[in-house]
């Protein structure tokens, strides 16, 4: 049994002539919180979509839990996209039932507890909620699954600081050594304290993949500072 939950080799994605991923090689170990950092357009979201099964790669290989991307991997991947992807007409309780029906690893009790702590009324309809509250609901649903790998795409962008703390809290609380959490973001300084490793991606290529404390010790800088240096325009 591999210690890696995700392995990809020479992963390539082209849109016509446009080369978005130019041969990605990555291995994510189990039980890590990994930051996928890069500017807009670097290929972060494309990579995550391929891993989540929303996009087919043009070339190369990617395996999650040693399986090719498909319904088996979808069952163990919990993906939080950057947008509202729940049906607006649903009430919160409907979304819980939905997740329960389709995901055998969904922990209803955990979800209800988290919603209650945030004073979110489960019989409220999503369309009556603010964007921030909807995002919290989505995060709670995604984190209430006992998935083997979580992909959180910009979980704290566009969210107020208190909510940001709550989200970071939820991520730490949810951590377990059998799962890996991949956080894609450009808001690095808010999140770097909770990361084990970072991956820098630039123009569709990985430029760095290292343990964060090692980076700090070697460079005497925060990840945020290093990022700004590396990705200077």
């Amino acid at each position, binding site marked *: 049994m591999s210690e890696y939950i995700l392995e990809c080799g020479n992963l390539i994605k082209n849109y016509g002539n446009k080369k978005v991923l130019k041969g990605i090689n990555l291995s994510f170990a189990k039980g890590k919180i990994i930051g996928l950092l890069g500017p807009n357009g670097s290929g972060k979201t494309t990579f995550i979509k391929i891993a989540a099964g929303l996009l087919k790669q043009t070339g190369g290989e990617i395996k999650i839990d040693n399986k090719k991307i498909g319904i088996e991997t979808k069952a163990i991947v919990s993906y939080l996209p950057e947008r509202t992807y729940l049906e607006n007409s649903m009430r919160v309780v409907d979304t819980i039932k939905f997740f329960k029906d389709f995901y055998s690893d969904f922990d209803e009790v955990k979800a209800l507890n988290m919603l209650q702590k945030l004073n979110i009324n489960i019989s409220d309809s999503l369309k009556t909620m603010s964007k921030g509250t909807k995002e919290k609901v989505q995060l709670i649903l995604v984190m209430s699954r006992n998935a083997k790998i979580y992909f959180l795409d910009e979980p704290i962008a566009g969210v107020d600081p208190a909510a940001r703390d709550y989200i970071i809290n939820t991520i730490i609380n949810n951590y377990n050594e059998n799962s890996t959490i991949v956080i894609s973001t450009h808001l690095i300084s808010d999140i770097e*304290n909770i990361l084990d490793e970072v991956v820098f991606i630039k123009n569709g290529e990985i430029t760095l993949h290292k343990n964060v404390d090692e980076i700090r010790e070697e460079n005497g800088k925060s990840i945020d500072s290093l990022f700004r240096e590396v990705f200077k325009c």
Partner: protein
Amino acid sequence: MAWNFSKEQSIYTQIVEHIKISIISGEYKLGEKIPSVRELAVTAAVNPNTMQKALQELEKMNLVFTQRTSGRFITEDKAMVDKLKEDFAKKQIIDFYKKMKSIGLTKNEIINFVEKTFGEMN
């Protein structure tokens, strides 16, 4: 509230320092049970793996020990903690002295200033 960390140095060494100071100051009492790795990670707003590494480091330093079924506890060795307190204070004093020396004060002048300032403080 997260603990205050400088992001320019490795977080885990800062956690070790933070907990060490909590022990020296008596905030964590001798023999007291400390929260789980997860709870501490949440309080400090850090990665649980990082917190675990720090706690392991503290165990190596004998400041913390694990009882298999009951969890982690602060050391009961008062002498060691007192020595650490002394070492910490000494280091602060030496650093302080270096700074004062750099503005041209002698040891006697420093002591006088310290006494005077303490008098004003109360």
